[in-house]
């Protein structure tokens, strides 16, 4: 056999527990993974345009609409005329609008998001210090929610109309209707606040207890603090994933290739795992990335409720003061991350769908 080397394949790995799982099979060429440069260029350009649009929007939102940005930024607080003067100069409000915009762009390109009132520190620095906890929370919750949602969505869709399907769909629809922050509050009251004589199982908020030392203890303590916020975020996100996966799978159900797979003598679960799921995952992944903005929204609320010291909490603090440079910086940061994640999805997608390649 003069066939080229084989590369691992996601589908066959998923099917590995089966005795008849396929091993390497002829003629896999890694060269097939080449995607046209044009595809990447178009996607990259689109992302850059989106990013520019975010910057323009932010400029208009925070500088132009309020009329007097200094008054908007300092609303509700006493400022001395010197402070006003200082702010005016800081934002270059004495210059014409287009010069202000250019200056604003220049600052952004240097990753300078201005100074926070509250913390008297550069917004960029604040974001950098608060990024870690948010990533920990969001990463954990998204992984769990995706696994749970895709799994349950697959089960519900494959047996449409069954009791399991009706239960899963009903729960998902109800969770759609639950405000994230309220769910978090309930979790605290029931599992941490000791309402009705319930034991205080979990801490009410924060990321760690003050008097814990040692790496192992800190990990356990952090995990303990993570349980409720992660559970809240998972509950909100998995319902989303479940419904998307379910309807993608239902779209595949009548397909001819599934009849072929059954005719080959595959067990029902293998037909599902090897054939239906890989096909249904493609539209699902696209939709999941489209909805990533909701992950950000969910994080803000969960962090606000559980006082989780991340970006969402920072945003909440900025709102209550209000600390507009901070809010503006986070607005740009959140939007940019969402655009970046979507770009990443576009770049990764060809790995899963051979039809986009070549």
């Amino acid at each position, binding site marked *: 056999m003069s066939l080229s080397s084989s590369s691992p394949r996601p589908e066959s790995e998923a099917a590995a527990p089966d005795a008849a799982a*396929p091993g390497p099979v002829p003629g896999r060429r890694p060269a097939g993974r080449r995607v046209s440069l044009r595809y990447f260029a178009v996607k990259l350009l689109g992302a850059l345009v989106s990013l520019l649009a975010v910057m323009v929007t932010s400029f208009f939102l925070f500088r132009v609409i309020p009329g007097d940005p200094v008054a908007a930024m300092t609303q509700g607080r006493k400022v001395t005329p010197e402070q006003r003067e200082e702010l005016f100069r800081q934002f270059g409000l004495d210059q014409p609008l287009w010069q202000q915009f250019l200056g604003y762009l220049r600052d952004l390109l240097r990753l300078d998001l201005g100074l926070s009132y509250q913390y008297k520190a550069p917004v960029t620095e604040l974001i950098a210090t608060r990024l870690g906890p948010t990533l920990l929370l969001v990463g954990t919750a998204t992984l769990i929610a995706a696994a749970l949602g895709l799994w349950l969505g697959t089960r519900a869709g494959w047996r449409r109309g069954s009791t399991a399907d009706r239960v899963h769909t009903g729960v998902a629809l109800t969770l759609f209707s639950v405000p994230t922050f309220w769910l978090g509050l309930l979790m605290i009251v029931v599992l941490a606040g000791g309402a009705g004589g319930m034991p205080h199982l979990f801490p009410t908020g924060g990321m760690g207890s003050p008097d814990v030392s040692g790496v192992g203890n800190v990990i356990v303590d952090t995990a303990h603090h993570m349980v409720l916020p992660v559970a809240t975020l998972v509950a909100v996100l998995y319902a989303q994933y479940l419904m998307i996966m379910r309807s993608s799978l239902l779209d595949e159900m009548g*397909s001819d290739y599934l009849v072929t797979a059954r*005719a080959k003598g595959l067990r029902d679960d293998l037909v599902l795992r090897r054939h239906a799921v890989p096909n249904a995952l493609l539209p699902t992944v696209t939709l999941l990335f489209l909805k990533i903005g909701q992950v950000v929204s969910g994080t803000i609320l969960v962090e606000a409720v559980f006082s989780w010291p991340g970006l969402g909490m920072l945003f909440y603090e900025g709102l209550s003061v209000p600390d507009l440079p901070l809010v503006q910086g986070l607005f740009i940061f959140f939007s940019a991350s969402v655009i970046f994640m979507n770009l990443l999805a576009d770049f990764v997608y060809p790995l899963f769908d051979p039809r986009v390649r070549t």
Partner: protein
Amino acid sequence: MSTGGNDAAQRTNFLAVEDLSVTYRTGSGDVPAVRGVDLAVAPGTKLGVAGESGCGKSTIALALLRLLPSTARMSGRILLDGEDVLTMKWGRLRAVRWAGASIVFQGAMHSLNAVRRIGDQIAEPILLHEQRTPAEVRTRVSALLEQVGLPQQRAAAYPHELSGGQRQRVMIAMALACNPRLIIADEPTTALDVMIQAQILRLISGLVSDHGISMLMISHDLSVLADTCDRLAVMYAGRVVEEGAAHEVFSTPRHPYSEALSAAFPRIGDPASRRRPRGLPGDPPDPAALPAGCSFRPRCPAAQDRCAETDPALWRAGAERRAACVHVLSDEQAVELGVPPAPAAPSAAPPDRPANGADPAQPEEIR
């Protein structure tokens, strides 16, 4: 076929379908798709099943391996090598699928999984049904691809990278993968252009003959089936209406419907065939509301009053031939079966040849 008992039929025929009925349950009542069909395929022979779309022929193809959706109810027997498919346990059924009988589906674009390499898709049933090392499977896949005239490097291709004809070749290679004793070809050349159709047909019938595999080929194209198959069954509204040796059914059809199907395709070297009116007026009947009597009557050019009263069965219509039409009956046979006699025809028909020159449906009489 009529000789010998049931046991003999089971032994001599690799596939024997007996009184198969399939009914789809829908929201607005039951719809019969197949109504009491008998078919038989002897080892190493090819049976063609012809008919318009909606006559139930594709339902039969799926029913043979119990691949119909759960809304379908089946009755009768489908004996595959003497075993009834309809009463098999699931495990046994899965073992029989593809290894005992495999299917070449129509429209290979949708019948192949778009996100898996074709080599993997061909290898899948081999790994499932046979104990083989990966190296052996690789060799086998390459050999299969070569047999169907594709370079072995194409194993790495995805379905969308192949042409329609190449995809159908992949389907054929896949069908041969486990050395089945029967191949069911469901409209294998539909949606291909004419030149490719001929290639694929030659390929499939050649391979089947070389390996001594039995074949059941389903098509709307009577001429294709006459070229490829040994025997032919013509279906209309869920029933077999004519059955016999392929070339005989094609050249001297006894049922007016077979006649119309046969006339729809001009015969090369027969100028008369080009002058004959082709096609059939009207549409196939709604399976949920079949007409009384002969279901072909509303469209039949040779319909008589008695056709409304008689639901014809497959009657003997010559050596090794049967047709479900009152015209194949002599007056004596008709009386015996309780079928009303034919009205007095202007030219008296010889009793053994009820279809005569006066009958527009039977122009072969001139021969």
